[in-house]
């Protein structure tokens, strides 16, 4: 199972404002890393950086590198991003959606209602942390 976690999931999991669903999800993913994979685009790391102290961001990069690599945004096909812009997503949201498709992700996990409201006709499912946590618990 391949997941893309939106920046809000990381920020709510270890930022100065926390959400228990996001915390539980990240903890659970770590418990099941043999069965669950995560991919991370550069843009998301930059968003997370804006919400962490420099020292905490350094730990975040070390954290990410223990289980995945960071993909540069430029590797994401432009046409895919344009497709999602055409569906009404903002440019940066489109990049994340394009990234999810390009990586072949099963789920894009986000608390962003703009993603959550566009669940039809996507090659990946969009769910929030609470639903993702329940799905993992029921399927693994």
């Amino acid at each position, binding site marked *: 199972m391949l997941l893309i976690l939106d920046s809000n999931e990381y920020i709510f999991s270890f930022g100065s404002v926390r959400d228990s669903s996001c915390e539980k999800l990240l903890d659970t993913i770590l418990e099941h890393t043999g069965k669950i994979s995560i991919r991370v685009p550069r843009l998301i790391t*930059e968003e997370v950086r804006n919400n962490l*102290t420099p020292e905490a961001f350094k730990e975040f990069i070390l954290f990410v590198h223990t289980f995945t690599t960071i993909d540069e945004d430029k590797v994401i096909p432009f046409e895919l991003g344009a497709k999602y812009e055409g569906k009404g997503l*903002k440019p*940066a949201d489109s990049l994340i959606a394009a990234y999810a498709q390009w990586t072949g992700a099963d789920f894009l996990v986000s608390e*962003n209602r703009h993603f959550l409201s566009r669940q039809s006709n996507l090659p990946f499912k969009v769910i929030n942390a609470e639903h993702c946590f329940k799905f993992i618990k029921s399927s693994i």
Partner: protein
Amino acid sequence: MMKLNIKKAKMHLQKIRELMSKVTSPYKGMSKQEIIEEIRKTREKLWEAKLASHS
């Protein structure tokens, strides 16, 4: 193939949470949805800055 090091991952995650627990949130007093909107604004700004730097 990346070698997973879950023990290290948990150690880094714990460290991040410890460090950030000492920080006053810039989102203090905001609802979850308001925070998400702020994060989205940051995303758009970062993306615009990226595009500008590559044009």
